[in-house]
C-alpha cells in the first residue's frame, strides 16, 4: 500500500487530500476527480464570486430563482440543520457578517475590493423557516442573503468521502479543508488515523482523537481566533450569533466536534462556540455530540467523550 498526499489552496484555505491505495494511478485519478468536485463546489457556492449560483440567488432575493439540484440539496440541508439547532445555525448571516467587517475573500490580494454584486451589508437576518421551495426554484425573503460558510466545507467533505467510498479500492483516507477533516479506513500498516487538535492561539497540538474502528469520522474546529479583525474601531470575528446579529460574545475560543458526518461537525462546532461554556453541555446532549473539546478563555480545555487519545 502507498500513502499519497496532495495539497492545494481552495475555498480560501488549504485543502489536503491523503489516500492510502494499492496503485498510484488509482490515487492520481481520484485526486483529479476530488479537486474537480471542490472547484465546481467553489464556483457554485462562493459568496465572493459575482457569477456564482449563490450570488445570483442573493441578488434575486424576494423572487423565485431556478437553481441546480446541487444548490437545492445544500440549501435543504442548511434549512434542516438550522431547524435542528433551533436557529443557532442560520444561513442568513451574510449581511451581518459583512457589516461586522468580513467583506472580502481572505485569498484575494490585500486591499482588493470585493467583487461587484457580492455585498449585502444593508440586508436583514431572516429565519430558516422563510426559505420557500417549489420544485427546482427557491425563494428567500427580500433584502436578505444566504451564506454557506458555516456548513459548506463540512457538506463538501461528506460529498468527497462519499465519492471515495463509492469508488472503493482505497484502504484509507483523510481529507482536510481548512482544518475540517474527514477520515476513514486506516493509515499504512493498518494503523488508525490520529487527528491532532490545534491550539486555539498557536500551532501546537493540544489533544488527539483516534479513529479506532476505521469508520468514517469527521472532526471540525470553529472559533473566534481566526478570520477576525478590527472594523470601524470595533473588534470582530466571523462567528455571528443569529440571536443578536453580531459577532458572538462567548467564553469559548474554539470548539472541536467529532461526529461521523462532516456537515454536522462543521455546524455543531459553530453552535457550541455561540452557546458558551455554560450551555455547551446541554446543547451537546441535544445534538448527540459524543466527543467534543472546548478551548476556553476562563476554564482551560474542556474535553468530553471517549474518543480522545
Amino acid at each position, binding site marked *: *500500500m*502507498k*500513502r*499519497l*498526499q*496532495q*495539497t*492545494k*489552496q*481552495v475555498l480560501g*484555505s*488549504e485543502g*489536503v487530500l*491523503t489516500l492510502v491505495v494499492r496503485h*498510484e494511478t488509482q490515487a*492520481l485519478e481520484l*485526486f483529479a476527480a476530488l*479537486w474537480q468536485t471542490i472547484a465546481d463546489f467553489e464556483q457554485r457556492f462562493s459568496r465572493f464570486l459575482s457569477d456564482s449560483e449563490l450570488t445570483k440567488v442573493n441578488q434575486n432575493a424576494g423572487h423565485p430563482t431556478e437553481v441546480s439540484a446541487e444548490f437545492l440539496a445544500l440549501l435543504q440541508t442548511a434549512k434542516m440543520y438550522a431547524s435542528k439547532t433551533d436557529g443557532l445555525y442560520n444561513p442568513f448571516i451574510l449581511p451581518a457578517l459583512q457589516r461586522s467587517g468580513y467583506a472580502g475573500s481572505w485569498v484575494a490580494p490585500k486591499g482588493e475590493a470585493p467583487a461587484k454584486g457580492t455585498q449585502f451589508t444593508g440586508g436583514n437576518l431572516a429565519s430558516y423557516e422563510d426559505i420557500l421551495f417549489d420544485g427546482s426554484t427557491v425563494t428567500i425573503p427580500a433584502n436578505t442573503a444566504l451564506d454557506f460558510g458555516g456548513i459548506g*466545507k463540512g457538506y463538501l467533505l461528506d460529498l468527497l468521502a462519499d465519492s471515495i467510498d463509492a469508488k472503493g479500492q482505497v*484502504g484509507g483516507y*483523510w481529507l*482536510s*479543508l*481548512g*482544518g*475540517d*477533516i474527514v*477520515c476513514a*479506513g*486506516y493509515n*499504512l*500498516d*493498518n494503523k488508525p*488515523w*490520529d*487527528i*491532532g*487538535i*490545534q491550539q*486555539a492561539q498557536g*500551532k*501546537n*497540538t493540544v489533544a488527539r482523537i483516534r479513529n*479506532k*474502528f*476505521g*469508520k468514517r469520522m469527521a*472532526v*471540525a*474546529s*470553529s*472559533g473566534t*481566533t*481566526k478570520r477576525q479583525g478590527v472594523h470601524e474601531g470595533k473588534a470582530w470575528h466571523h462567528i455571528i450569533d443569529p440571536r443578536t446579529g453580531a459577532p458572538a460574545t462567548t467564553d469559548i475560543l*474554539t470548539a*472541536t466536534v467529532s461526529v461521523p458526518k462532516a456537515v454536522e461537525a*462543521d455546524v455543531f462546532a459553530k453552535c457550541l462556540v455561540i452557546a458558551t461554556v455554560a450551555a455547551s453541555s446541554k446543547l451537546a446532549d441535544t445534538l448527540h455530540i*459524543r466527543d467534543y473539546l472546548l478551548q476556553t478563555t476562563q476554564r482551560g480545555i474542556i474535553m468530553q467523550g*471517549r474518543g480522545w487519545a
Partner: protein
Amino acid sequence: MREFIVESTKNVSPGVVNLTFRPARPSDAFDFEPGQYISFGFKRGARPSPMRCFSLVNAPDERGYLQIAFRVEGPFTQSAARLRRGDRVMVQGPFGEFTISPRQDRRVVMLAGGIGITPFMSMVRAAKDRYPMLPMTLLYGCRSASDIPYAEELLRLENADPNLQVIFFISDGSRLRQSGAQVVHGRIDDAWLDKVSSGSFIGSTYFICGPKRMTEALPAQLIARDIDPSRVVTESFTQTSQAGQRGWGIPRITYALAAVGTLAVIGIIMGLDLVRQVPKLVAQQAKNNSSTSSNSNNTNDATANTSTSGATDNTSSTSNTNSSTSTSDSSSSTYQQPVSSVS
C-alpha cells in the same frame, strides 16, 4: 464489575440464544476487540449466579452494547435463557487474545465448530470496517443444516464483502435452506486442511474455536503441515489457550529494549565512575601509604545526570502552496499530519 441491562433475547437457531446487553451507565461501557470474551452473571432470586465466560458475537459498538450467544444445555444457560428485557446482569472483561492483529495477520483462516462460531461472528461483522483489506476464510462445521446459527447473516456478509469467504461443512448430509452457499457434506478433513495450508494460504493465521476434540486435534494437524505454531490460535469457549506463542508483540519488544537500554545506561555510568575514581583512589592510597597521617576519608561522589527530552509536536505548519498541486508519497518528508484547526 460492570452493570449491564438486558436489551433483548432472541433465538438464532434451535437451542441457541442470543442476548444483547446495554450498559446501565455510560461509565459501564467498554471497548473490546473482535474475538474477545466476557464473563457474566445475574441474580437468581436473591442469590447471585456464578460468573461464566462467553465470546462476544457483536462487532465493537460505539454505544457499548454487548452480545453473546450460547447453546442452552445446563442450569446456567437455562437460567440465562430466561432473562428478559430490563433484567440486570454483571459483566467483567473483556478478556482473551483470540483476536486478529492487522499488523501480523496478513490472511486469516477461521475454523469453527458448532457454537464455536461466536467469536468469529464478531470478527466477520467487524471485518469490513476494521480489516477492510484482510482476506478471511471461514470453515464452519455443523452437525445439521437445520441447526446453523447465523447462517443467513454469514451469507449476507459474504456477499457484501469480497474479502470474506464462508464454507459450510455439514456432517449429517442434510441440505442447507439458503441458496448461494458453498456447502461441503462432511467434516473439515485432511484434504481441506491441505487446501487452506498451501498456495495462496501460505503465511495465513489460523483461528480455531469449537468442541474440545476440534481444538485439540486441529492445531497439531496444521503444525504437521509446516504451519508456524505461532500462527495457530485456539479458543475453547470459556478459556483461551494457544498452540504456540504468537511471536514477539510490540509490548515485549518494548520491555526488552527498555531493559537492555537501562542496563546499558547503568553499565556506562558505572564504567565512567570507575574511570574517574580509580586513579584518584590509587593516588589517595599511595598518599596514605607515604603519609604518617591517615585520617582523611575520600568520599566518592557519583552524580547521574538525567537528560530531559523535549516533547515533540507533530503539528505541521500549513504551507501555502498557492494553488499548486504536489503529490507526496509515504516516504516523503513533506507529509502533513491531520490536524484540525479553526477553519
